[in-house]
């Protein structure tokens, strides 16, 4: 392994100062970063380990009713927090459908948001990849790309963002709190990840030294608790990334959809908010036809980037199903097979 400096800052300010330098990266649980380093995909000069920073591992309800999740809260602790799972069930379900129990115990909020794509050509240092090295070319474009993007891709990059967690967070208008060189700022989660355009190497809105310190769910996010689901189609029952996933959340009043939220995963370089689909659902009766219409709207702009046209049809079907499940109501308990089409199978073994 390439030698690197390892720094364990005592304060957030020290962390930011240490990470501003070129070649420095933040290390959280390392479940993604260390794999990338072992594969020679990332070759940082300096690791700034943030896992020992104080005050970043809390889950707190703020005075205005929003919820603030510290960046060091583990994926498992968040999903298993009873109040959290009750108020934001689709987020908990998404978390529990990701990776494996062991990985979820380690993985952090910030790390999950900023995990890198699983594009095989990005991981394979013998392949050309614009994201790994700007201007090199994209070997996925004409390669084995049946799981690549169908929305928002460019000729320079057709990779997807793999996070499950981000999908319902985006649907619920999550906000990301960032500490940087010039102090604290916050941005919408929708603005955190960037589409590739001509610069796929620039994946997020973060500047050098920027540290995600928390994610906040606004007060309105609680309003969907009774009708919120995450659905993830994957190539085995557990421990696989989404082929396509969707988070659907509805606020139903007097039998009509007062407000709908819909986001897709596994389809683009960022979690994908389907606002046009949300708009057609506003004020309508939640019927199969309405959900079909929403599904068509959600994927109007989709186009295959390779051998992946099926993902567009699959995404439409997932949208319909996720909305149908959400309309049926959040189950009292998170299913033993979270977010799985087999969630309802009796006698299920835990994933």
């Amino acid at each position: 392994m390439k030698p690197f400096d390892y720094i364990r800052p005592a304060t957030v300010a020290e962390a930011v100062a240490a990470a501003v330098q070129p070649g420095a990266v933040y290390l959280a649980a390392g479940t993604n970063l260390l794999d990338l380093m072992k594969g020679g995909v990332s070759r940082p000069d300096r690791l700034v380990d943030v896992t020992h920073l104080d005050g970043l591992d809390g889950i707190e309800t703020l005075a205005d009713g929003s919820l603030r999740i510290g960046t060091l809260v583990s994926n498992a602790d968040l999903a298993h927090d009873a109040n959290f799972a009750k108020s934001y069930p689709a987020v908990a379900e998404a978390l529990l459908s990701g990776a494996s129990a062991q990985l979820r115990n380690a993985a952090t909020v910030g790390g999950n948001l900023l995990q890198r794509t699983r594009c095989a050509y990005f991981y394979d240092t013998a392949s050309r990849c614009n994201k790994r090295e700007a201007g090199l070319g994209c070997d996925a474009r004409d390669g084995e790309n049946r799981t690549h993007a169908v929305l928002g891709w460019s000729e320079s990059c057709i990779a997807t963002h793999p996070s499950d967690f981000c999908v319902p967070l985006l649907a619920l208008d999550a906000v990301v709190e960032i500490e940087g060189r010039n102090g604290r700022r916050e941005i919408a989660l929708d603005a955190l990840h960037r589409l590739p355009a001509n610069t796929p190497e620039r994946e997020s809105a973060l500047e050098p030294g920027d540290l995600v310190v928390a994610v906040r769910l606004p007060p309105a996010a609680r309003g969907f608790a009774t009708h919120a689901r995450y659905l993830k189609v994957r190539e085995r029952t557990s421990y696989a990334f989404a082929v396509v996933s969707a988070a659907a959340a509805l606020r139903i009043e007097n039998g009509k959809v007062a407000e709908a939220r819909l986001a897709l995963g596994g389809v683009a370089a960022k979690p994908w908010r389907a606002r046009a689909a949300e708009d057609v659902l506003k004020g309508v009766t939640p019927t199969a036809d309405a959900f079909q219409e929403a599904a068509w709207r959600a994927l109007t702009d989709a186009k295959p980037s390779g051998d992946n046209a099926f993902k567009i049809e699959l995404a439409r079907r997932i949208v319909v199903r996720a909305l149908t499940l959400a309309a049926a109501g959040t189950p009292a308990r998170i299913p033993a097979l979270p977010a799985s089409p087999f969630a309802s199978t009796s006698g299920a073994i835990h994933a």
Partner: protein
Amino acid sequence: MPELNLSSSPAHLRHGSNIGQPLTRRDGVLKVKGQATYAADNHPPGMLFAVMAVASIARGRVTSLDVAAAKRHPGVVDVMTPDHKPQLAIDPEIKTNPFVFRMEVLQSDEVRYANQPIAVVIAETLEAATEGAVLLAPRYETLPALVGLDAGESYVPPVVGVGNPTENHLGDVEAGLTAAEKQIDAIYETPPQYHNAMEPHAIVAAWNGDSLQIDMPTQGLMLSLARVAELFGIAHDKIHIRSPFLGGGFGSKGLMAGPPVLGIMAAKLVGKPVKLVLRREQMYGPVGHRAPTRQRLRIGTDGEGRLTALDHHARTVSSTFDDFYEPAADASHTLYASPAIRTSHDAVRVNTGTPLFMRAPGEATGSIALESAIDEMAWACGMDPLAFRLKNYAEVEPITGKPFSSKALRACYEQGAARFGWAKRSLQPRQMRDDAGLLVGWGMGTATFPALMFQAEARAVLRRDGSGAMEIGAHDMGQGAWTALAQIAADELGLDIDRVEFKAGSSDLPDAGIAGGSAHTATAGAAIHSAGAAVVAKLADLATNDERSPLFGAGNAGVIARDGRLIRRDDETRGESYVEILARAGVAEVEARGTGAPNPAAMEEYAMHAHGAVFAEVKVDPELGQVRVTRMVGAFAAGRIVNPHLVKSQLFGGMIWGMSFALHEEAITDRRSGRIMNANLGEYHIPVNADVPPLDVITVEEHDPHVNALGIKGVGEIGITGSAGAVANAVWHATGVRVRRFPIKIEELLTQR
């Protein structure tokens, strides 16, 4: 040999027969406590770490390596390259026997496949060696890679598998197809698959003058030893290989491959012990794999659903530099009676490492295609798949006409179908749903695997203190040899299992042959059986020839060894303990050797196979296409069951592998570069716990007087066969969509609503 403290809980102590008892594995506690020493756990003093640099191209030449940069890296001791390496005694390209495969041990700068070793960096730490390998920054002259089943001109290989004829004919297939009332003609594809044993290939090699100590997982101690001896030009007795435990092998650790040879060369180069462990992605190249296949099946039946012809052709691939051909079509030789059968193979050469035996080589690939085709044929005839199979039940081996040494397949069908509830199956597909609206499908497949025997020798000892020993260089790959073979040893010596010192896993013990072909328990068991009989005979001689013994005059045939005593067969009250016999004779111990080998006369007369029937239930989301296996029942008849517990585990593992074959496993190869894009366990999918439903295994009683003295057939591989087809057929039955390209993918099932 590390000290092994094999456990055996008192609950399992049985007097009389040890064979047939469900002992838990005796090395289990060692493994759970981390006390079982695998090869890479060894750290001799002064040991250095070797890391291979591997090619990132699939075809061409290495034009430069920055050896200086690697050597400058702190901790790097040396860099082994084609220009700087110890000389081998023979050219590794020479095939000295059919079990020798060509390997890349830096003999040239040619690159023949991706992930081929091109240099080895030796350093004081693993990290330094790893970084040194990166710093070599190889440059290449790249040629277009040959990739896939249509990579070039096809040819007919001289043999397939291990010396099987490429083609087999019975009757007139074309006439049979022409005369048929109903016909199917279908093409199936299976992908390249990699063994992916949990334990990566590893070696710790230490030279001491001209003798060599090796720790390395191997399924073939003596084959490996012989290969090392010829490559390094040293005598067999200068080499000691220890392989007490393997973390799986599945065929990939059967024969000596390039990487462990590089470890031995590295140790020689630096004059210190060296450890070389493959990274997961490095296992996708130099250590074998299952080749892809494209199989065409043409089947005809008469008006009553009886086969008139069965034509099975398989296209496969081999490497550009050596030959191994997956004998996929041979699966059609044994299962279904037909007046006309033709099986044939052809191949193309591609830039991969040479394919190799992988758990059920030929049977696994061939079985999923054959069992799918039989299912399609049954449907074309409007018949239940089980009824169709019974109608075409082979009373004699179809391709040879030989009787079976034993065949309890009918009982397997009956018991499996009853346990599964098969009678309630709808004939039409896409008819069954569960409460949640998921499509439900039931499918079945027939399992078969030949009952093979190789050669082995064992040494047995009975001691004056009442204990005994059995020595055999057998291999425990996780299947449970430490337990099952010790059970056989205990019975043959007439002792409690805890009174028998069972030694295995080391090359200084008698040759147990190779742990492969599902034949290890049968072969090593037969050797143990004859060694035990021989040592008991010697002991009996001491007693029956001695006037002072109560057994005097009983004659060899007249005594039984039981519980540490010899007893007169015709009068069980008269007997004497081993201790007494040896003490009186004034000897410390008696010893004898015995061998196990196939019986050519029986093989000439009988077809020998294990059989089984597997039934699977899948659920498929009707709109989203995701598949889940929800139930599997397998009924297997495999002769005598030495340890029901371990046998079940083998069959479970095989059934899970079959499910994996149908739904998950595939090495995704970039069609341009020939590189494998999912060479890691995150993306090379195999079933996880949540994919595996409750599995139900029935072992069907079967007595076989012909296969070997103990009546044992193998169980290591048969579980895959039948299972893969059963799952695939269940997917069809659930959805009405016949997928002929494996693994079955979601997009194939999105066709209907």
